[in-house]
Structures are given as structure tokens and as C-alpha cells.
């Protein structure tokens, strides 16, 4: 019981971080970015390349006990985040900015195209074989014995993912609620026209939205690679859970995206244990359908 919940929270951490960026994109850029999942995949793979470079420079991966990774992966994570942020700015300048006046449908179609290009770019560069950041075996820690609610085991890497997700989410919340740029982003999401006459530069807000979404996507991608594996279809596989989390939480709400992501993660974990791993993706689909039928605005939709 608790094990299912813990596994779900780990999956949900990845989904939550990705969903925050997608939700911000939805509410500020005002279109559903079907390429967002690919940003997670690119983050994961750029980190893989950077990890190879840093490990070579350091003469090894230097794992920090009890984790399977060392500082080279942390440095690679930072490089991946910056690289994906740069990638989104290039994508925006080359594609989305040119189409912004055409409306949301055009942007959505463009994002499909961007997703295809990004996914196949990864396939071309890295091949289709699953890869891992580390070949180190991790021993799960027994947090609770089996006799208590079925027991609870978790690896140090999973604990790291949960902790860093919590820190990141709090950081994003503080940024959006306390900083001028964060408040300007919320204001633009609420009322873009009023934001303009209030003196908020819309292009600056758009760039910030891309960058923050990209940073979070890269972190989520690295977490996915760390806790599961890297594969070029990572972004596509995560797309439905990301959308389910955003719609479940309510478009524009950071905490909604986080909670939505965790619920989707737990639903997937339940599906794995109850009906088998092959039906895992169906869990997100059912969550999405259920929320659309019961509360289409989501749990924490931002009101205008």
C-alpha cells in the first residue's frame, strides 16, 4: 500500500515538474505546447552528454554515497537546464514568435511539428537503445518493515528526487509570488491586455515563461533518466501524464500542477500494481477523462 504510494510520488515528481512548465505555457503563452514533453527528453539526453564530458574530465563519475551519482551529474543537470532553456528561446524565435498572431490553433499545430523534429533529432543523435546515467546498483533502504502496511523501500536516488522536487516547487512558488518578474508573469496570465497597459513587457514575460518551463523540464527529464532510464520516446510517453496533471490541477496553477502530477503518478503506480505495467499510460488517460467530465476547470483553476 505505502510502497505503491511512494512509487507513485516518485513518478509524480517528474510529472509535476514538467506539468508546472506546461501549465505556465498554457496560461501565459496561451497555447497547449505538445512539444513540452520533448523538452524533458532533451534535458535528459543533454545531461547524458554533459555527464560523459564531466566524468571524463574528473576521471570517473565519483558517486556520492549513498547515491548512484556524483557531482558530474549535478553539473550535467545544470548544463542541461541551460541548454534546454536556450533551445526553447531558439524555438520561440524561429517558430512560435512568427506564428503568435495566427492564433492558438496554429501554435498547437506548430508545437506538434516541433515535437516530431525534436524527438527524431534525439533518435538521430543518440539512437533508440535505452541508456542510463549510471551502471551502479542501488540498494533500496527499508523505511518500514513489511508487517506495517506492506512495508516501504526506497532508493537514495528516489529520495533525492523527492527532496529536490519539493525544493524546486517551493522555489518556483516563491519566485511567482514574491518577485516582480514572477508577479508580472501571473498578471500576464490573468489579463494580458491590462498587463501591457500596466507597463509589463509581454516579450520579457514570454521569454521568462519559456526559460522557467525549460529549466523545470530539464530537471524533470534528468529525474526520469535517473529513476527509470533514458529513451528517445521519453517525451512522448510523458506527454499524456503532463496534460492530465495540468488539466487536473487547473490551468495556470503551480500547486494544481504539482498536485495533479502527484495524483497522476500515484494513479500510474496503482495501475502498474493492479493491471500491469503495460496499462500504465491508461491511468493518466482515465484521470484526464474523469476530470474533464467532473470538473473541467481543474482543482485549482486560476480565476480572472
Amino acid at each position, binding site marked *: 500500500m505505502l510502497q505503491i504510494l511512494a512509487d507513485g510520488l516518485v513518478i509524480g515528481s517528474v510529472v509535476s515538474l514538467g506539468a508546472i512548465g506546461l501549465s505556465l505555457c498554457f496560461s501565459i503563452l496561451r497555447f497547449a505546447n505538445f512539444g513540452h514533453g520533448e523538452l524533458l527528453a532533451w534535458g535528459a539526453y543533454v545531461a547524458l552528454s554533459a555527464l560523459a564530458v564531466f566524468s571524463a574530465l574528473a576521471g570517473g563519475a565519483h558517486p556520492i554515497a549513498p547515491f548512484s551519482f556524483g557531482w558530474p551529474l549535478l553539473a550535467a543537470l545544470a548544463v542541461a537546464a541551460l541548454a534546454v532553456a536556450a533551445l526553447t528561446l531558439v524555438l520561440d524565435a524561429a517558430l512560435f514568435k512568427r506564428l503568435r498572431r495566427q492564433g492558438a490553433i496554429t501554435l498547437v499545430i506548430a508545437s506538434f511539428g516541433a515535437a516530431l523534429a525534436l524527438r527524431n533529432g534525439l533518435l538521430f543523435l543518440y539512437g533508440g537503445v535505452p541508456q542510463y546515467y549510471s551502471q551502479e546498483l542501488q540498494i533500496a533502504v527499508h523505511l518500514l518493515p513489511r508487517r506495517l502496511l506492506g512495508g516501504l523501500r526506497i532508493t537514495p536516488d528516489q529520495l533525492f528526487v523527492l527532496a529536490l522536487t519539493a525544493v524546486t516547487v517551493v522555489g518556483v512558488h516563491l519566485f511567482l509570488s514574491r518577485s*516582480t518578474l514572477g*508577479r*508580472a508573469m*501571473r*498578471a500576464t496570465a*490573468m*489579463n494580458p*491586455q*491590462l*498587463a*501591457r*497597459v*500596466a*507597463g*509589463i*513587457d*509581454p516579450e520579457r514575460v514570454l521569454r521568462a515563461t519559456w526559460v522557467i518551463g525549460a529549466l523545470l523540464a530539464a530537471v524533470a527529464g534528468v529525474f526520469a533518466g535517473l529513476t527509470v532510464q533514458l529513451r528517445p520516446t521519453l517525451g512522448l510517453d510523458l506527454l499524456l501524464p503532463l496534460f492530465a496533471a495540468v488539466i487536473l490541477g487547473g490551468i495556470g496553477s503551480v500547486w494544481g500542477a504539482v498536485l495533479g502530477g502527484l495524483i497522476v503518478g500515484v494513479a500510474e503506480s496503482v495501475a502498474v500494481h493492479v493491471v500491469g505495467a503495460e496499462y500504465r499510460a491508461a491511468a493518466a488517460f482515465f484521470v484526464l477523462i474523469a476530470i474533464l467530465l467532473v470538473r473541467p476547470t481543474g482543482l485549482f483553476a*486560476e*480565476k*480572472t
Partner: protein
Amino acid sequence: MSSPALDIESLEAAYEPGLPIVRGANLRVQPGEIVAILGPNGAGKSTLVKAVAGLVPISAGRVLLHGADITCVPAHRLVFEGLAFVPQTENVFANLTIAENLELAAAILKADKRERLDPVYAMFPDLQRQRALLAGRLSGGQRQMLAVARALIARPRVLMLDEPSAGLSPKLVGQVLDQLKRVRDTGVTVVLVEQNVKAALAVADRAAVLVEGREHLVGTAAELRADARIAELYLGRHVQAQAVA
């Protein structure tokens, strides 16, 4: 003689290219004036102020603010030039508190928060008392006060308002328009679009009647109140009878 606070010259503006709503409008507003823009529905009143505020594309003509051409200045830069605009609806950030609305306005300008907020709170003490309240929970009149207060944080030289009385009770209309007089008394030039002609002419120094996208009548508020066409079209029989008397 000093240049006008706001000078609109032969302005044409359209939401869609080739379909102008404002068709060669002219309006000159002197510093310290309250000028009302009146007219029937669809005359282009709101489009005119939105075009001046940078929200509707201008296809011809120009706009001068204290002599400086601001025709091509983007909407988000106009507040730095001294022009503030209060839209008719959704004119506050509903999910931010009163304090956050005002602090954001100050922060965008990179101005000292206390220095900007204190005078505004002094002018609108109700807002200070309720500063932790979400703007979305305010009544129509309070929202309008907050919208004006938010605009005043920028210390504009010209304040434009699009139908500040829309949706308000007659009592609140009087309060809001009285506030505009107090705003003018601080040295701010005020331009307001109004459907409520009687209330607008009670507060304005001058007014312009817009018809089909250009000014049809321009005069002092007293002249327009006495104008038989205005009385007949906008002020009703009672006032018409008063005017005749």
C-alpha cells in the same frame, strides 16, 4: 503657450486592416483639464482611447503627449512616458491582493514602493484598510477605485479611463467621478470615455461627442449641456425642459 497634454490628430484606428473604427478623430486636451468623450454606441469612443493607449493598431494620424509623438510607442512603454489607461472591464488583477496590485505597479516602474503607495493610500483610504483582500473579491466601485489607484502609482501626466461608471450604481458613479476631480486637483489631466452623459458633463471641463469615428461636437461641458441636440439625444426630456426653462 505650453503644448497640449494630449493632442490627437486625424487619428485612424482599426482592429482589422481596412475596417477603421476611428476615422480621422481630432482632440486636443489642455493640461489640468477633465475632458469627456461622449457619443452613441459604436461611435468609436473606446476604440479611440484604446488606440491612444497602444492597444488598437493606428493606421493614420498621430498622438502627441505634451508635444512628444507617442504614436508608435508600444502599450507597455506608455506608462513610462506619463500616460496611464484604465480599461472598462477587467481593470485589476483579480488574483492579486489590493497591495500586490499596487506594489506590482510600483515595482514595474522600479520606483520606491512606500513613496508611491503612501500618497495613493492617502487618496483611497478604503484600499489601505483592505489591502490584503484579493482584488477579485472587491465590489464594482472598489474595483474601479483600485484600478484608478493602480494607474496613479505611475504618477501619470495624463490619465485615460474607459467608462469608469459602467455597471456602478448612481451613488457609486458620483463617488468615482468625484475621485477623478480629486485626481485632477493633483495636477493630472483626465480623459474619460462615458456613456453616462449627465454624470460625465457634471464632472468634465470640456467634452467631445464622437459620431462614426470622428468628433462631431466639441465644447465646454456647459455648452454641451445647453446644446439642444445633446439634451434631446442623451439627457432626456427632464433636462431638455430645464434647458428650455
